[in-house]
């Protein structure tokens, strides 16, 4: 079996938002929509306060509440663990958006452009009416993964088969790969480091891990 997951090393993330920009460029998301966000958290209480950058987005849960509530079956989990939305089925009821504990879903009612009412050349070229009025979210760049795998490449190892945010992360904080492959980079990182997942108490079994310290064992 294959389950693709993402790993974010919180020790390395510097909050540069390059992953966010890479995602927006790769997926042509409209203003206000950030499939890959970087939270700027202030943790603790004065004077013991620290600033932590936390990349987040769809956690591609193995028990995704968004899939359970979706009345149309537009949201479904692929065999490789990627949670996808079939835009042609989605009715835009937003039940998935309120079911997601990670605030990962967006719904845009009309076309919006980054600079006023006129689209830039890129926006005009890449505008897609299929994503208007429906739920959207991070896809783990599934098209890139599928194309890469079809060419015999390994997601997480070869950039041509790896999500854009991971490819462009300048500090090497993001990693991607198959957690069921014990030799994959993500498996090694999880073995060698202490890690947690966001809102684990929700029982969604998210596919997004955060490293925070070395594991001496």
């Amino acid at each position, binding site marked *: 079996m294959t389950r693709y997951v993402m790993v974010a090393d919180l020790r390395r993330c510097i909050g540069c938002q390059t992953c966010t920009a890479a995602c927006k460029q790769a997926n042509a998301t409209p203003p206000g929509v950030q499939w890959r966000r970087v939270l700027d958290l202030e943790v603790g209480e004065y004077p*013991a306060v620290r600033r932590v950058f936390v990349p987040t987005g769809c956690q591609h849960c193995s028990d995704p509440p968004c899939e359970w509530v979706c009345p149309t*079956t537009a949201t479904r989990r692929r065999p490789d663990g990627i949670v996808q939305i079939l835009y042609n089925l989605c*009715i835009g009821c937003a039940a998935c958006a309120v079911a997601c504990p990670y605030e990962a879903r967006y719904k845009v009612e009309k076309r919006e452009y980054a600079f006023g009412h006129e689209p830039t050349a890129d926006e005009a070229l890449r505008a897609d009416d299929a994503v208007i009025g429906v739920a959207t979210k991070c896809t783990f760049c599934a098209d890139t993964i599928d194309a890469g795998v079809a060419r015999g490449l390994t997601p997480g190892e070869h950039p041509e088969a790896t999500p854009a945010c991971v490819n462009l992360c300048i500090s090497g904080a993001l990693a991607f790969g198959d957690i069921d492959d014990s030799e994959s980079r993500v498996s090694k990182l999880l073995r060698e480091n202490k890690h947690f997942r966001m809102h684990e108490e929700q029982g969604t079994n998210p596919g997004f891990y955060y490293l925070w*310290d070395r594991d001496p064992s």
Partner: protein
Amino acid sequence: MTAILDGAPRLQRNWDSRAACNFIGGGAGTGLLLASAAALPAGSNYFPSALLAVALIGFGLSMVWLEIGRPFRALNVFFHPQTSWMTREALLSVPLFALAGIAILADQRLVPLPFQARVPVAGLASAAAAVGLAFMFCQARMLRASRGVPAWREPALQAVIIATGIAEGLGLLLVVSLFVAPPPAWVAPAAIAALVARAIAWEYYRQRLQTWAPAAAVAALHRISLPLQLVGHLLPAALLGAAIIAPVSQLPTAVAGLAVFATGAWLKLTVVTRAGFTQGFTIPFVPSRGRNPAETTRWPPQITQPGR
């Protein structure tokens, strides 16, 4: 450990007052359908109250239709009965409208003559009420399934939604009765019982949330709690109690019924549009960036403030 700035809970904007209208119309409508069916054996006039019930449910569903992003694909809502409470609600709406519609037509003797004697109005009305109750339950479960919003996923909200729907239905039956015929004698005591149930369910729900929900959500509910208890529970219960003891006029009971319905609608509107805060983001561990990893186990570090 607290997380602020980006990680703070924020008011969800995906479901607005149109979605709230579905819970308002659906809950009150199915409650009224139930009350109307229960009042039928006592000779109550089924037609006006059932028609209002169906109109309320239809209004709620229409508002949802206006809210969805792709209204012309609305029939796709029927595709996922295995796990989606929204699909189940939509599926139940079909027999609900059919049964209530036929019951209304039969009650008015608008079905073709050969069938008039064979159509059991009371049976149809009871079936419509049962389906309506299931419809109301689906609505309650839709909120519980919204795992991203603590104030909605709290299981105690289900009791609030169901108690409110039943109380609103009885309240609206009292309002409708003002214009047609006096309601059966059991309606006022039943409405008081429903009000007590709603008041208890509401307080229990708020208490449950206080321990773990975002403070803003708790505050939003707290703001309406006193007026709700006074105008939504105490006042109508007093009016109904007085009407039971000294049944002089139907007006006080109608006013009580209207107060129950209006405050129920207000409650649901508040829960959906004002208390719908996300849970935000928190991290259980702080990264050991830039420090000896061994130090991370001693978070927070002991920092001595100058002058102390």
